[in-house]
């Protein structure tokens, strides 16, 4: 995988020190496969959701029972009362086929990534924050810098700061597992075989509601993530995540 890049890229490159890869091949491939499957899951998930944009808590819920909340959007089924007077095109069939297929891609890629990350020390080296960085003072200084939109310095392109590390760890080890778990909990066959998967969440409608909120969090993460990449220098960060290296180290 991109061995040739170990040689200096040009004669004018920094002498003696070769530019190391910012992201390993596995990180780059799994990143883009996950990104693509997540986008597919998002679009198809919205398509599935609009057939019944109402949420409940517990085991059951339908239009005749009180909702926990309701999204103020039209629906794709005429049996669902929205008050809008029109029905969106129904795309549920292929959306469901594609949602579950993309879920398999995301889950298998995620499993591969996590096993790789543990075995090669990727999590320990690149994502686990240093104990010294976990003080409130350091975290709040960094957070304030972020909120003032202070541009990352050049070192920031080569290593993640503690806020990034914590965010990525949260997404990888909390949000993704939770969205997979709540997705599985909606399956009648899984609920039959492993009832605890459902009962711990409070029921199948609770699972659906949590699935929705975790997806919203993941979507917000995606927006902030892309915004930060944009802010930090879109071209260079994209180069690093596609080819492995930013354009130059200057």
């Amino acid at each position, binding site marked *: *995988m991109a061995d040739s890049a170990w040689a200096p890229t040009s004669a004018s490159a920094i002498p003696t020190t070769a530019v190391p890869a910012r992201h*390993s*091949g*596995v990180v780059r491939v799994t990143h883009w496969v996950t990104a693509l499957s997540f986008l597919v899951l998002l679009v198809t998930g919205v398509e*599935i*959701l609009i*057939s*019944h944009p*109402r949420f409940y808590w517990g*085991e*059951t*819920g*339908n*239009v*005749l*029972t009180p909702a926990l909340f309701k999204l103020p959007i039209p629906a794709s*089924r005429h*049996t*669902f009362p929205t008050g809008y007077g029109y029905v969106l095109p129904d795309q*549920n*069939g*292929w959306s*469901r*086929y*594609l949602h*579950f*297929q*993309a*879920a*398999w891609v995301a889950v298998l890629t995620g499993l*591969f990534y996590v*096993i*790789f990350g543990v*075995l*090669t*020390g990727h999590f320990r080296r690149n994502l686990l924050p240093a104990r010294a960085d976990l003080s409130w003072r350091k975290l709040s200084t960094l957070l304030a810098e972020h909120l003032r939109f202070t541009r990352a310095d050049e070192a920031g392109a080569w290593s993640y700061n503690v806020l990034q590390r914590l965010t990525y760890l949260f997404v990888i080890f909390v949000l993704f597992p939770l969205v997979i778990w709540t997705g599985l909990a*909606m*399956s*009648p*066959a*899984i*609920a*039959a*075989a492993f*009832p605890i998967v*459902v009962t711990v969440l409070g029921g*199948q*409608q609770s699972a*659906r509601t949590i699935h929705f909120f975790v997806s919203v969090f993941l979507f917000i993460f995606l927006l902030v993530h892309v915004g930060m990449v944009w802010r930090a220098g879109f071209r260079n960060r994209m180069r690093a995540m596609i080819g492995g290296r930013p354009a130059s180290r200057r």
Partner: protein
Amino acid sequence: MNHFSRRKLITAAAVAGGASGLAAAAGLARRYGLIPPDGKGIYGPGETLTYAAQRLLTRHALAREFAPSQISKTPFANEVDPLGDEFQRLQEAGFADWRLAVDGLVARPASFSIPEIKSFPRRSQITHLACEEGWSYIAEWIGTPLFHILDAVGTLPQARYVIYRSIQPDVWESIDMADALHPQTLIAHGMNGDELPVKFGGPLRLRVPRQLGYKSVKYINRLTIADDLKRFGKGLGSSSPEAGYAWYAGI
């Protein structure tokens, strides 16, 4: 350099292992009937993975049964297309002439009236019904486990699927023998301690509690036992894939 070569080794081993694992899995899936009838085409890999994984992990699992206090006060039923003159005629006669025909790979093809269906051992279960749209309810279902009917007609050993049809034109489904012989798969004729209302599929509905609601077809009047689904409809297993929905709905 050391950890880089180690990482490459791990990656290469994982990729090689994954590829040969996939090939072996595909072979095994074919051999053990783990490929669903709609397992071809662009969504085939996902459908096959889901069906195969769930058949391996959940074949004998029992759907959760709930307490009477958990029965939904307001069950919901989607509208169906107008049921037609024949249904109306049968309904006006109190479904006295409703028949459930059983044919295909059976030793003794038969046709059962509703009282005959009710004379089989009865099972009552309080289970969850979820629609693919996202809504759900819990109800008590009373009926005859399908395996009693299959025993009565003498299913031949090569049987692999049970096809069931609604009186509604072009509404038909099928399940594999794992679901057909499952103790909770019912020819339901009652709901919540009463007769099964027409709105919820009366007089007879096939209840498959380990799959989504659309597999529980209403107004069934014919069962066909088959070894292959290719000869039926467009060969995708049921009318759902023909309308764009997955054949296997255990998700």
